[in-house]
């Protein structure tokens, strides 16, 4: 079962494509920024794990052409807001970083298939690395509101990069931070931490995103402990709608490997079905 599909937009078209006004765009720390957009109701129907396709406005010295996919970090229909957490890595995100309150940008979405969070779950485990926590953060309030306990391992380069508060959003969850700086994020150390959690307080499901190493580790432990898992993948995109077949990843389906679209069948996949690791750029 998947998370309930949002109802069709009033226009009759399930995917919205609308100009949105920037309400705020601030640095969270040295690496990450937080963008808040005022969005019409059809766009505010995103569920955790879905994404929007952002048309990053051109500047004279910087002209991104295609849209950039960005996971929804927070949706607040009552405030008509959709929010993003992003890392500035190239032309598209550089142009996002230049937006100021009052600017307008074109946003398409919500897109893709998000996380499956069964209301019957009692405890979930989340393992997030870097900006991947933006993708997973909306699961936290969703789960807490339904009385599901959340344990999270957050991995970052250093304490300054962690964004623990952005992840927890004032919900009462249990966070285990690990860092590259002090070696606690090494695979062996994270494995020991995970085994501790799986032995003491077995979760009903595990969710992850953003790291090859963590994926391989969780696939192994998921099989060993018999815990269902899901992962949000990233892949370069063009259309974002399932049309161009740019964004495929190898997925194991009934003993065969097939190419599935990250923008459509994903970005969230069954952890055990993801075949192989990958490199970006």
């Amino acid at each position, binding site marked *: 079962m998947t998370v309930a599909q949002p109802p069709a937009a009033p226009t009759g078209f399930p995917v919205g494509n609308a100009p949105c006004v920037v309400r705020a765009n601030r640095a969270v720390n040295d690496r990450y920024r937080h963008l808040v957009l005022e969005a019409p109701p059809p766009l505010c129907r995103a569920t955790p794990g879905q994404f929007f396709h952002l048309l990053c406005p051109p500047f004279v010295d910087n002209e991104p052409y295609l849209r950039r996919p960005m996971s929804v970090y927070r949706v607040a229909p009552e405030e008509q807001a959709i929010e993003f957490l992003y890392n500035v890595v190239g032309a598209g995100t550089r142009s996002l970083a230049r937006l100021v309150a009052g600017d307008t940008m074109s946003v*398409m979405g919500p897109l893709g298939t998000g996380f499956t969070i069964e209301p019957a779950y009692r405890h979930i485990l989340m393992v997030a690395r870097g900006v991947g926590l933006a993708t997973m953060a909306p699961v936290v309030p969703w789960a807490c509101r339904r009385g599901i306990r959340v344990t999270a391992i957050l991995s970052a380069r250093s304490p300054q990069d962690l964004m623990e508060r952005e992840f927890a959003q004032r919900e009462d969850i249990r966070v285990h931070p690990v860092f590259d700086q002090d070696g606690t994020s090494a695979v062996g150390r994270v494995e020991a931490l995970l085994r501790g959690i799986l032995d003491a307080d077995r979760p009903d499901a595990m969710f992850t995103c953003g790291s090859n190493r963590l994926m391989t580790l969780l696939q192994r432990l998921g099989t060993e402990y018999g815990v269902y898992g899901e992962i949000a993948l990233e892949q370069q995109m063009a259309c974002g709608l399932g049309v161009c077949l740019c964004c495929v990843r190898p997925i194991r389906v009934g003993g065969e490997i097939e190419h599935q679209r990250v923008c459509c069948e994903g970005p969230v996949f069954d952890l055990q079905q993801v075949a192989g690791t990958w490199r970006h750029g």
Partner: protein
Amino acid sequence: MVDLSVRVGALTLKNPVMPASGCFSHEFGQVFDLGRLGALVTKSVTPKLRKGNPIPRVAEVSQGMLNSIGIPSKGIDHYVRETVPLFAAHSSPLVASVSADTVAEFAQATAALSVPGVAVIEANISCPNLEADGHAFAMLPDTTYAAVSAIKRATPLPVWAKLTPNTGDIKAIALAAERAGADALVVANTILGMTIDVNSFRPTLGNVMGGLSGPAIKPIALRLVFQCAEVVSIPIIGCGGIARGEDVVEFMLAGATAVQVGTASFVHADAMIRILEELQAFCEARGIGRVADLVHRARVEHEPIEW
């Protein structure tokens, strides 16, 4: 009211704007009404099952993109069974794009695709010909002729031949396709290109090289249409970099009867609808009653000195 209809051979289209193969599928129905398009052109299908190329399959360039999707295909039967019915409810004619490795396979696949629900066969002869060192059929006049004539014999439906801009002699290719019986030409496919990541020293695309598309190629595509229109009398469908209503006007003035829009739909999913509305507004503002009156009306006052 502007009359937007155009005739492509025996087929009348309600307007000249349609998608380019590989840049359209039923998923766009989530964003706009597909019935507004002049025709519906699907991604090329091949008789052989294919997985397509390695990732990354897309790289951005200034005003465009490179793609190395290849042609992932679930085969002709799958297309006839699963894809054709998706478009049955729409009034716009369905154009099935076909690709194959050999002339014989092209003919077989075309026959198998000629089913109720399919109105036109678009022959993507810009793909590698395995019988000729992997050079695309449309690189040379004789392989163009061989492929198009076999495809024509295999179907009662109109055949549109899609040419490649990578050939050195587009006029000879266009004439060969016309002689072989093509009902129209689609001009053109993507231009072969590549990019290299200067940080990793690696080619950006998983497949090293890929096809360039988007506004970056528009002047080249426009020139190809103009050159084809000088020599053939069958209709030409312009394709390459079209993103605005005025681009359609330009292609029609150069000799195109209709146009296809590809990459622009990745930037704005409803680009074709906007383009159509801008085309209509242009005609209204200029007092042009029939859009078809634009075809081949560029005012060329001097013959170009050949290049």
